[in-house]
């Protein structure tokens, strides 16, 4: 079994943080279906799931033939009234027959794509994370369409306070066929969790260039339902980090303290302070059984470490600019 998915993350196109009631309306994509939401530890709402039928070639590294028939599940989530994510996933499973079955068969297994052909799942995983291959499974397009649908919702004013790039996280989770058997392992004291050595769960994360990121996970089958939340959380925090780092770079911190350029630089990083800094809350909704995966990502590439450095840089710059401005004011008072 192989779970694959893609997550598009971007700034919600609205001038202010969207309040919870409007968020819920903006995400009501399916009539008769509830939008799920929670307020703590951070405002979060997720749309009903949209299913799309697929019957196509799957990408493989070896270019061996693999065909998939089934459905992918797409949903949208809004965090903190500020960040919009579209997330599509499916689970690839070996088909019982080479024939295309009646469509009702596939709809009875929502979110599963049945695979025929010679290619193995590792080959498909490599193909999916590699260079895009023409006329193969395109989960990115499903996210794009959902993103566009939400952007056009009347609840949003489409006047964002600043412009930043969207990022894409493409992920695969190789699933061990046997469920994890936790009793086999001796219990370990809390705080001693070492993801790499903790059973079959593993995570790797790459910046694949531009705005594309890839992640490769390995986990036991009974952890599969929680993996989407983990990847969405990963994508959210990577986007926050990318965006805040970008805003700092745009802020030109090399200007002379107290100068006009310096004040303007602080103005440019202000959106980060106003809209984004409070959203950093890694693993807030991640099932605790998958926390070792987050922890391993925290060691390398070390999201929170880099975030803390960025936040310190912003604070330092604001502090220095303030000191510079105070100096100018003090000078003015002395002269007067």
């Amino acid at each position: 079994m192989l779970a694959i998915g893609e997550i598009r993350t971007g700034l919600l196109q609205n001038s202010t943080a969207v309040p919870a009631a409007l968020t819920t309306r903006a995400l009501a994509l399916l009539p008769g279906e509830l939008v799920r939401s929670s307020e703590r530890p951070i405002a979060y709402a997720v749309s009903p799931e949209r299913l799309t039928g697929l019957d196509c070639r799957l990408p493989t590294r070896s270019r061996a033939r693999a065909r998939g028939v089934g459905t992918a599940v797409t949903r949208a989530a809004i965090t903190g009234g500020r960040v919009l994510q579209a997330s599509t996933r499916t689970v690839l499973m070996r088909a019982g027959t080479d024939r295309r079955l009646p469509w009702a068969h596939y709809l009875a297994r929502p979110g599963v794509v049945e695979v025929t052909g010679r290619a193995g799942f590792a080959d498909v995983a490599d193909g999916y994370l590699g260079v895009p291959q023409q006329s193969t499974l395109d989960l990115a397009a499903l996210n794009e369409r959902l993103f566009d649908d939400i952007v056009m919702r009347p609840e949003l004013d489409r006047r964002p306070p600043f412009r930043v790039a969207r990022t894409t996280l493409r992920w695969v989770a190789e699933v061990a066929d046997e469920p994890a058997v936790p009793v086999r392992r001796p219990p370990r004291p809390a705080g001693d969790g070492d993801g790499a050595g903790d059973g079959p769960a593993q995570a790797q994360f790459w910046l694949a260039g531009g705005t594309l990121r890839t992640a490769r996970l390995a986990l036991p089958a009974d952890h599969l339902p929680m993996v989407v939340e983990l990847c969405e959380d990963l994508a959210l925090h990577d986007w926050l980090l990318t965006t805040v780092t970008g805003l700092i770079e745009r802020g030109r911190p090399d200007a002379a303290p107290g100068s006009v350029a310096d004040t303007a630089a602080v103005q440019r990083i202000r959106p980060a302070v106003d809209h984004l800094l409070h959203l950093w809350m890694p693993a807030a909704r991640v099932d605790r059984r998958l926390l070792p995966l987050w922890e391993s990502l925290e060691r390398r590439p070390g999201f929170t470490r880099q975030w803390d450095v960025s936040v310190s840089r912003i604070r330092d710059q604001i502090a220095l600019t303030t000191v510079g401005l105070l100096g100018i004011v003090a000078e003015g008072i002395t002269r007067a």
Partner: protein
Amino acid sequence: MTKAEMVFGEVAAQRTVASVPLSHLSIELGHLYREDLDAEDINGYGRRLGHHFKAVRPWVDALRQGFTDVRPGRAPRISTCFLVDDYFGDFSTPAQLVPALVTAADSVGLQIDYLARESGCADADGVPLAALVEARLVDDPPPDTTGTRPPARETGWLCNGQRTPASAEALSALGGWAPPTENGARNHSIFVDVELWNEQDGRRVWSCPFLAAVWQLLRLGLLRNLGEPVAVPAPLSLAELPETWAELPPVAQLTPRPAPFSAYRTASVLASRFLPVELAVRTILSQVHVDPEADQQVVRRSGAESVALPAEVVDRVSYVFLS
């Protein structure tokens, strides 16, 4: 040492889907259209209904026996229902027709537990059932559907494959006409294209097969609105029948303590002329993504009763077609 652990949960973050009572089998004793009842006098259609139920009776017995054989020694929960078409134009009145129906069924020893009206499948007490089902359609994808483009839809239509290309460019690219094809056809295609609705006088009118598909999903206990059951049967006294169909509940309960309206499986005993309609119904049902939680409830409960149930919703629906 035990470690205390706080579990944080918020009600709003949970998705709750109410369950509905379920029989083993829902038998539809018939489907009544206005054209079936153009006779002026009530005695005239009383006789026609009598003939209808007489023809239906042996098949109802056979369906009951089938369930008794599966679960020997235990009485199966079986409910019966009857659908009146009040959607495509009003006819007669409940005060006239319902007693005639009940009497005609009774004359051959059949009971109608639930009487439903077709317009209730479009809108049940303000819940737009047909629109909710339409929103849950997931098109059967033809080969090479990668997701890059949205499904090629003809507004208001649903098919089971690929239509003949309509544009001149597409035809010339193919070098002429190409036949429509059924997805997953075995050697030869049986291509079906179903009209779901059209516009009449600026108003959306749902097609008979689409409403019949909603009707099947209702009987299978698979429809919810915001997690709540829809078209819940309401008791109806034969002594106080209204003059218009709109005053009747979408599903009216006519007998005192019937088995639940919805069931694991449905069987409909219908005249053969309904065959094309039901082919269209099955084409639609094959492309409805029912609420997974509602479906899981049905699957779990049938499993707990050791009643075999196909995973495919459309395969829970069966028919007897009469000449």
